[in-house]
């Protein structure tokens, strides 16, 4: 993966997992880039220490696919920020990806428990 060296997270995030995480975070509320980064690292108890910059290509990708939209707005401390919102298509996609993630996690878990 030529891109890994550039902007993909150094952490061994499974390919496509970042997208899933972003979608999940945005399901609850509309957020700006660093807010998304904060949420992900909070909920993963810092386990996923990602290069924050790598969020942006993912956000652009999601936006191009129509799963999120973006708009400029005011942040909580009254600063300009670009907010990302989950679209309906994004919601559907989140369901799909969550389901498939759970299937996979269950499968891997099963293997780990019984093999």
């Amino acid at each position: 993966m030529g891109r890994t060296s550039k902007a993909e997270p150094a952490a061994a995030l499974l390919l496509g997992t970042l997208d899933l995480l972003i979608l999940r975070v945005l399901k609850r509320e509309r957020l700006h880039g660093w807010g998304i980064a904060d949420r992900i690292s909070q909920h993963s108890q810092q386990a996923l220490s990602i290069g924050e910059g790598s969020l942006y290509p993912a956000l652009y990708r999601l936006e191009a696919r129509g799963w999120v939209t973006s708009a400029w707005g005011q942040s909580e401390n009254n600063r300009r920020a670009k907010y990302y919102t989950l679209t309906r298509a994004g919601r559907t996609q989140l369901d799909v990806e969550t389901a498939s993630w759970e299937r996979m996690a269950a499968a891997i878990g099963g293997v780990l428990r019984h093999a």
Partner: protein
Amino acid sequence: MPDWRRLARWIGSRRRSRRETEADMAEEIRLHLEQRTREFLAQGLTPEQARTAARRRFGSVDAVKDACRDERRSAAWLGTCWLDLRHAARSLRRDAAFTVPAVFTLTLGVGLVTLFCSVFNGLLLEPWPLPEPDTLVRGTTGVSPAVYRVLQARSQSIDLAAIASCPSFIDGDAKGTTFRCVSGNYFDTLRVPLVLGRGFRSEEDVTGAPVAVTVIGYALWRDRFSLSPDAIGRTIRLNDVPFRIVGVAAPGATDQPARNVPRLWLPLAAYPLVTADIPSDREFLSNPEYCCVQLAGRLRPSQSPSTVSAELTALNRQIGGETHGRPIVMTGTAEIHQPWEDSAVALVGLILAGVLLVLLVACANTGNLQLARGSRRQPELLIRLSLGASRGRLVRQLLTEGLVLAGAATLLSLVFSSAAVAGMARWLGRDASVALRLLPDWRVAGLSVAIATVAILVTGLGPAYRGTRQVLVANRLTRAPMRARSWFVVVQVALCAVLIVAASLLARGLTRAATLDPGFDADEVASVFVRLSSYQSRESRIAAIQRAVLDALPSADPPVVAEAGARRVFAQVAISGSAERVLSRVASISVSPAYLRLFNARLVAGRLLRDDDSPAQVVVNESFAKRAWPGRSAVGAVFDTGTPQATIGNGSVSETGAPSRASAGTATADGASAGTRRQVVGVVGDMQRENSRPGAPVLPAFFERGDGDRLYVRNDAVMLDRARAAARRIDPAASLEITPLSESFGAGLSDLRVGVGLAVALSASSLVMAAMGIFGIFALVTEERRREVGIRVALGASRAAIVLLMANRAGRALAAGLLAGLIGAAAAAPILRHYLIGVGPHDPAAFLVAGLVLAAAAATATFIPIRRALRTDPAITLRAD
């Protein structure tokens, strides 16, 4: 997510320009870093440490930006295409000096091909507009109605219908119309669509028991019956015979698409009803020697055109024997139609070759223009490259421009060819439905898109590649490679030369043909045709009028009037003598003795016919004499004729097997000529048939005394008035149509004239393109060397020296092109041999004309830029850079 939503989103996002998105991205990242820095500051780091920590946490800003751009680009490559398109349109609009000639050239080239293909497609390759055209076949040759009946009754492989046309008058219409006379199964078998009533039944088409019913065409229904359903059961009078209407055909219903839609249909058996006065026409249906009806039919299941042809040929052999039973070939209806057939294929090939040559010239010219534009644009490309545009991007943009150009040219060429087709249909006198059929269909349109695109890419790829490479390789403004430019010029000039040679050869053939001696006095003699306004007692009325004209005009020396019968062709004539010999294909014409004198035939030996000659005493033409009795006098010699093989009337053989009316009058001519011994009393010079093409070969022929049905008079105002007066006295409703033979003789040239027109048009358009191309290239070269010219002029070079200098290089390319073209033309010219009359395929004059025309065009095209270069003030030129 459906693609269209993505597309909609993309279009929405397109509203924001690219620059805005870029700024957006930078701002967003900046704010992110700012936020983190603030957080670290709050944790007590120094501003410097806080900024560094924030950056570390973020990662490489440039890499992130790049990755973002990548994401956006891959999502929106369509978007950059759109940008490319807009950019292309803008830059083309700015460079009218390139765009206008390029679009013009391409439009012409592609338009001609489109036009050709749509005409070819519509006239020749379109199946008959009837249901299930796949099972429909048609005969390539006609058979007599009697033979048709037998074939239809015996064939196991096909349901066979017969089609003939019969000229008739609908009462009230002053002008005669052509009807279709068809077999009783025609409507059921071919399934010609009807809107009302029914087609014919087989019991309505029994030879000898005519039933006066008719199916009328939609146009007639509209004009005569105002589309009223009452028309069924009403009668309409045809040649004064009432016919009951049983059906109305659908609008535009026809069998053969290349011909006009029929006004109405009659059962074949009803043919004698409308031609009651012509005894020989009655025989049309029963005499197997009589030609022709056209065959068409439906294949029965699991039959193919070849199996049907084999069966019908075998049946025809059974009926007519080996000699009379010619092969009957059935083909699909989408193959070359009559009246084009055989020679049409060759002709189509020739025209196609011409059209393709023009297309090639157009391509060369476009390449030329693109090359020139490429070198003009080098500064622009250089700037864009140094601003960071990738080379691939530039090439893509150049190609996009090409595609925009091709798109515009295709659209225009479709418009052009549609207009041309409409014009052609009008010119050919075809009705609107034909024009409609000739409009480019989607296949033709697709073809022209493909041609234009390929043309532009093939000619544009090289220049685009080279243009950008040069910028890369050498950081200087190089000239576009002279070699490539010269090649385009050479190719253009060569192709153009081929076309001009072809056109001038054909044109010379045409002018030569007009001066060829037909062997008779074409200006002095006129043929007389009696025109009646109805068919009632046609035969006897015409005979009476002709008799009156004959009586009114002196036929003694010098003769003013003469008559001639039909021309017959004998398969074989036996020459008596010490060695029995046989001459094949010999024509005979029965004439009044005044005929040869009126025509001013050149007497070679013996004497002309006299009033007291017996029918056995004949005059032969030179071809006959030379072949039958080579090296000795023919006068007094004797030969025997068999039965005539065919009777060929004065009229040309009709298009789709309509019985040729002109021949009808003497088809049953006196038996005197059949199988009798003749004695030669004189030999006259060869005379061409009055309606043949000048230069056509003359058959061995003999003239015998006999009756005729055609009148010829001296083309003299007083005599013509007397003839007209005599006709009026007998029949006030009749009129005489008098045509000088020089006119009918020239009529044989009409197709050649069309061909010359076509060739001239093609070569003229290629000449214009080539001249434009040469001009473009040369203007560029002089522009580039302007500075050099300025220096030379400043240093005291004479104008002549400058002209020589500039013309030198162009001159070499032009000369090479011209030479190559003339050699190519010389090699290809024999293909045209068939169309050249009295001119060899290597006629020096034609080649000279081509050379001169091209040289003149090239000189004009180079002269203007040179003059412009010379006129500039050297001081200004030198200061310019």
